[in-house]
């Protein structure tokens, strides 16, 4: 009988600690499938900074090193510069990449560092219990915006992908979502391309993934998938935001 579905070789046999309906497990699955398919297991190194996914090293059967909160892009930069043969990716949440690590992220992109950033945007600080993230939507209730995010007080949801797209050193930036079988296929395609950009030495690539956090959103998994479609995508539209891989000025 033909086997059509199995655990990827680079995914450990460890049960996920992620909450039911969380997007991380789907993204981990997709990434380890890609690591197998692209034969990267022995040369890829992942950097997961603090956040729910700091435990990613328990699931990826590859070399991994935790970084300090927000410093993933700087750690990945140092690692890749010291050992350019490695394929280096960061796996960062919205608080990590878009708040505390904004400077590290923008400057790594601007230098055209040949690294890949996987950016999980779920509009809250998940691990610490659902506080406002820089990407929290206007009006969204969190534990630190109990009356709903008010842009006059708390500012606006920040669009890191669009900001990074105008930075000259970035090569490929796409926003996708893990909220339907069709969208999940697009996530895989985008991450494959982001890895390929690095393999081809073209420069900085980032995939932003809109990802459900049912527990902190206080929804069931289905409602959270629907909320991404109905609300989140309006603020964070899906699609390729920048792609200069075919052009001569790709780095």
């Amino acid at each position, binding site marked *: 009988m033909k086997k059509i579905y199995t655990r990827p070789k680079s995914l450990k046999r460890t049960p996920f600690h992620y909450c039911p309906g969380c997007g991380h497990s789907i993204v981990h699955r997709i990434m380890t499938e890609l690591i197998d398919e692209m034969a990267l*297991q*022995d*040369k*890829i*190194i992942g*950097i997961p900074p*603090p956040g729910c996914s*700091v435990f990613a*090293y328990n699931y*990826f*059967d*590859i*070399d*991994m*090193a*935790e*970084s*300090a909160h927000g*410093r993933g892009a*700087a*750690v*990945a*930069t*140092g*690692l*890749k*510069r*010291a*050992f350019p*043969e*490695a394929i280096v990716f960061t796996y960062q949440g919205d608080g990590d990449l878009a708040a505390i690590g904004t*400077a*590290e992220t*923008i*400057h790594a992109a601007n*230098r055209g560092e040949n690294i890949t950033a996987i950016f999980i945007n779920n509009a809250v600080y998940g691990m610490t219990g659902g506080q406002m993230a820089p990407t929290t939507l206007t009006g969204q209730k969190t534990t630190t915006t109990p009356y709903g995010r008010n842009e006059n007080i708390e500012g606006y949801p920040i669009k890191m992908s669009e900001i990074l797209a105008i930075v000259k050193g970035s090569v490929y930036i796409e926003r996708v979502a893990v909220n339907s079988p069709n969208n999940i296929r697009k996530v895989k395609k985008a991450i494959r391309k982001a890895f390929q950009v690095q393999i081809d030495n073209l420069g900085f690539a980032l995939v932003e993934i809109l990802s459900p956090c049912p527990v902190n959103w206080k929804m069931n998994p289905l409602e959270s998938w629907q909320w991404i479609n109905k609300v989140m995508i309006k603020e964070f539209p899906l699609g390729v935001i920048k792609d200069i891989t075919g052009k001569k000025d790709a780095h």
Partner: protein
Amino acid sequence: MTKVLMDGNSAIGEAAIRSGCQCYFGYPITPQNELTEYMATHLSRKKGCSFIQAESEIAAINMVFGASLAGVRVMTSSSSPGISLKQEGISYLAACELPAVIVNMSRGGPGLGSISASQADYFQATRGGGHGDYRTIVLAPSSVQELADLTYKAFDLADKYKMPVIILGDGMLGQMMEPVEFHHEAPEELPIRSDALRGAKGRPSKIIKTFTSNPATLEEINWSLLRRYQVIKQKETTFETFMVDDARLILVAFGIAARIAKGAIKSARAEGLKVGLLRPTTLWPFPGVIVKELTKKVKHFLVFELNMGQMLEDVQLVSEGRAEVSFYGRTGGVIPAPSEVFRILSRLYYQKGLK
């Protein structure tokens, strides 16, 4: 090799390259810019090497963390306010048992302070500096030659004990020019640690992390760090003594302050005052054993620092009341001449009836 005339900052850069330093990540701050500039000129285009002027000290130390993961020799440098920013990264390096060399050409503080030489970062350097229960080895040079020599040593110690090593200089040491001789040639092949994170090829995958869900496991990690620190205390403590054999009063000073103190001691000896100098060259581990030894026959110590009395506490701690410990300090970047220190020590000498 013949001697060359060089400023202290550049001498560290040259010694680092000759130690096989492959990566340098820095950020501009006075008075250590010559080191960053030296690396930009001499390391950035070297085959297999990397130089980045980072967007901040925080980014620079985290790049150091990344390069150390890959097993190469790596260095960063800064001055006091910048070193404060690096403390987060230094704590992570200590926790992950990653070697790195960090240079602090310290300046007046607190806050933005002044750009003149100061020793006010002694506490920060010798007590760990960042959060958590850890130590860093702290080397204290007092000449351009020693800056070069201790740079080689810093890389070796960092690799040997898998931990960050701090070279604690000051603005004066970094800026002044002296003849220096380099005793090493740059290695043909850059060294790579065998425990580096370079992909799971031919071995199981590896994790380097600090977060530990189980407090008991973390306690074990802290014990294991402590045991290493105890070995370092036994094996790596270094110091210099100068004219202590017949001394009735001993000055204790490190770094540039010790240079000034030596001048004062020479003047005092010319007047027949029996004074000597103890100069710790490792600040952590602090050479407490020699202080203890000296208190057996010398009952008066004068600690002289370019701060408000920081190493003073270590001297007091180990002397355990067996000797009287006095203090003289200038701070904020004020550098006294040897004549000023001579005045202080001779007054103390007569006051205590040592003549």
